[in-house]
């Protein structure tokens, strides 16, 4: 099981995957937006999205869990 964490404080601009989706390592899961900069958050390992912890428009802090992949 892998906890995918935000690496920057900002807003969730786009959620690219759905709960239950299979993702490959390096695949974009969500895109965070802050101060005019978009940062994609990629899966660190292949697996299934067990839980999505955020929705579009949510505010996340650096280190917050975005999704759980297993």
């Amino acid at each position, binding site marked *: 099981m892998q906890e995918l964490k935000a*690496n*920057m*404080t*900002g*807003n969730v601009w786009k959620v690219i995957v759905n709960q239950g989706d299979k993702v490959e390592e390096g695949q974009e899961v969500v895109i965070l*937006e*802050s*101060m*005019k*900069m978009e*940062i994609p958050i990629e899966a660190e390992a292949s697996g299934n999205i067990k839980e999505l912890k955020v929705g579009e428009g949510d*505010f996340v802090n*650096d280190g917050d869990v975005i999704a759980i992949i297993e």
Partner: protein
Amino acid sequence: MINKILVANRGEIAARIIRTCKMLDIKTVAIYSEADKDSPYVKMAEESFLIGPPNVNESYLNINKILSVAKEAKVDAIHPGYGFLSENGKFADSCRKEGIIFIGPSSKVIEKMGDKIVARSIMKDAGVPVIPGTEGAVASVEDAINLAKEINYPIMLKASAGGGGIGMEVVHSDEELEKAFESNLKKSQRFFGDGSMFLEKKIENAHHIEIQLLADNFGNVVHLYERECSIQRRNQKVIEEAPSIFISEETRKKMGSIAVQAAKVIGYTGAGTIEFLVDEENFYFLEMNTRLQVEHPVTEEITGVDIVEAQIKIAENKTLPFNQDEIVSEGHSVEVRIYAEDPVRFFPSPGLITKVEFPEGESIRNETAITNNYTVSPYYDPMIGKLIVKGSDRKQAISILKDALMRYNIEGIKTNIPMILEIINNEIFQAGQTTTDFVEKHYLPVIKK
């Protein structure tokens, strides 16, 4: 006569403009979004108006709302600052239709210079050297690849409507061009609503050097010398200085007179800047900014001219109070931009500033947007302040800067101060070898070790 100005901006530049207005006994009106209600600039103005939610489209880019506030407050003029609506021809026009002075050039000039392809062609006709590249927009990927054969790689692929470093990419081969073309097209359509792109030869080992101009409504144009702004990250400036120690006196004179000539040809009025790329032998037109620039203070420091005051006087239809010979450059000034961001990854770092202490001193100028217990919101640009120093020469200016940065204390969020210190301590920076690839070549490799 202008008796009351609405400042259509936020943060440090709103505070900067309000300060000069106060000195000139002009009343000021600040506008703010819900995210900026506790910003120091809001309290500096005589009147302030909440104009909407944090989202820029509903606040700082909301032309109708800003104009209705301007009418309600009965202002004579609007100062747009930089960014937001400052280079929006439609806004300039709308102000004037309402009988409000827009502090800036005509909407025609703004629109021409805002279109990079049009600007390039106008400047070429005005006798300004341009970078070898395509004459107009490229029609397709195939067209781009064909034209690239004549220009030779490496090539810059640029969006005609681009700005702020968005919509441009360097490519080294047909394959890279093909890939970049698609992604750049999507990006520029989304950001600027216009996907036109053109190609320019990538100038290697270039310095970014720009000329500050002032032009009144009677055809008088002067330049206030150059600024060297080569230290950049993500194509945005971090350190700016004046004068440039890279160019010779002869090149300085040539760049100044060509910039003045170009301003005359296009009928420019107000304060503006022509940006150039400069290598060992040549200088080339990059773009023209038809507004006040972030880094204008270094020019003010070496010439003693208050550029905001000059903008207001020009808008009042006054003639320039000086001619070219009367503008003297003295000493050396450096500005650094303080960004709320991680100094290694350059990722934004918004949040609560628990404590802030600014360095003070005779040769130190602070332009800031923050105070103790101020929350830096994630909605706007990461720049939270500028530190400007002046010395009798570059060496002294850098030494004052180093001392000031050591005393600059911001707690609670990450800032790029460690990055700036690392750069100004670098021997290559100190020797003035500040090419635009400095951060990739001499900063990132050092800190990643």
